Structures are given as C-alpha cells and as structure tokens.
C-alpha cells in the first residue's frame, strides 16, 4: 500500500513538473516523464524490452492534454499581452489631423514595423490625449503611439493593453522634423 502511495506521489510530482515546463518553455514534458516512468515501470514488472516504448508512448499521450492546456492558457494571456499598439497620431487640431495622422501612419508603419490593430480609439475629440502625460494619468482612455504637437512628432509610446499603461515611452528621432 505504501508502495502504491509512493508511486502516486512520484507520478503527481512528475506530472506537475512536466506540465510546468510545458507551460513555461513550450517543450514537451517528455524529458521529465520518460525517465520517471522508466524507473516507475520497474515496480509494475514490465519486461525490459517493453519499458522504453511504453514510456515513450505514454509520454506522447500525456503531451496531448498538457499542450492543449498550455496553449489555451497562453492564448488567453497573449491577447492581452500582444502589444496592441494602436498607431494613431494626434495633434492639437484633432479632427482633420486624426485622419491625416492615420493616413500618414500607413507609410510610417512600415518604418516602425508595428502591428496596427483596428480598434476605434476615439469616438469624440475629447478622448484624444494631448500629451503622453494625459494618457498616463488616465485622462484619456485612448491608446497612442505618437503625440504630435504642431504636426511634429515628439514622443512615441506603446500602449500595453494588458497593463493599461504606456511602455517604451521614447523619443522618435526619425519623426523629428528638421
């Protein structure tokens, strides 16, 4: 009976470790499961020539549910973490410039090599942040990558939708008008 308990404990620990590795690194837990099973199977009295294929087969079968769990969990968080940088430019003359900015962006996007996710950022001009500090304090709900003053881009930032904050707030040397 205590042998069985030990067996169960070992298997639970091995399952946990392999699952954790699969979740963190995306590798199968085979590196953990196979050696553990190989030792455990001796207790069950399996002939030697069947040990290795049995371990490999069982490990493969185990990888299926584990990777599904890992995948679904990653997907859940990924949608938040994938930087949904909305590449919209703002200026003090919002309405017309917001269009101009969006147009200008299309060319700039290739330079920036950023992903633009279609999301209506602004329904009204009141939502448009005037500066990065506005967006930071939450006065504006909009995301932004570039803030324009007088048609000159001075700052750029990435909006992290998961943390709801700006990250990588930086100067945009390429956008500075000479």
């Amino acid at each position, binding site marked *: 009976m205590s042998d069985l308990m030990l067996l169960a404990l070992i298997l639970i620990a091995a399952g946990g470790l392999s699952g954790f590795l699969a979740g963190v*690194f995306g590798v199968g837990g085979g590196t953990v499961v196979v050696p553990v099973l190989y030792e455990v199977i001796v207790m069950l*009295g399996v002939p030697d020539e069947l040990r290795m294929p049995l371990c490999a087969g069982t490990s*493969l079968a185990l990888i*299926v549910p*584990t990777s599904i769990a890992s995948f679904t969990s990653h997907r859940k968080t990924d949608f938040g973490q994938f930087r949904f940088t909305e590449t919209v430019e703002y200026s003090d003359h919002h309405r017309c410039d917001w269009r101009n900015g969006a147009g200008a962006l299309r060319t700039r996007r290739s330079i920036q090599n950023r992903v633009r996710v279609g999301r209506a950022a602004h329904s009204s001009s009141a939502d448009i942040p005037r500066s990065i500090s506005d967006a930071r304090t939450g006065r504006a709900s909009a995301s932004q990558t570039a803030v324009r003053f007088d048609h000159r881009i001075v700052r750029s930032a990435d909006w992290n939708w998961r943390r709801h904050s700006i990250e990588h707030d930086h100067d945009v040397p390429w956008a500075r008008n000479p």
Partner: protein
Amino acid sequence: MVSIPGAVGYMVAGWDRMGLPPFSIGFVSIAAVLALMPTSFLAATLGAGVAHHMPKRRLELYFATYLLMVCGQFGSSLAFD
C-alpha cells in the same frame, strides 16, 4: 499536435504485445496518463501564466539552463553507462 499521431502510432505498434501492464492500449499506459494528467494540466496552465509574468530575457536564460541540464544528463548517461 505532432504527439497525437505519435501516440496513436505507439498504440497500434504495441497492440497485441504480451506482458504490458494492465490498463494499457498498446504502448500507451492509460493508467499512467490518467495519473499524470491532472497535475500536468494544472501545472501547464500555471506555467504559461508564469512565463507571461517574466521578462523575456530571464525566460531565455531559464530555458538555456534547462537545455544545459538536459544536455548534461545526456552527457553523463553517455559517459557513465
């Protein structure tokens, strides 16, 4: 999902082998899978969360450490077996 055909292959390959432990389909021990699955499932979810809360650099370093460990294990099994 490479593992699905792999597992099926092992099931088929060991279909009528003698001496397999009970609750086995071919070379796949259903008992072992059922014993390992719940913790593995939960830990994978947890691990994915952990991976997302980690800076990329640190994750890379941990992965490198893990690979080195596996490497060392293989090396030692080559040397001392």
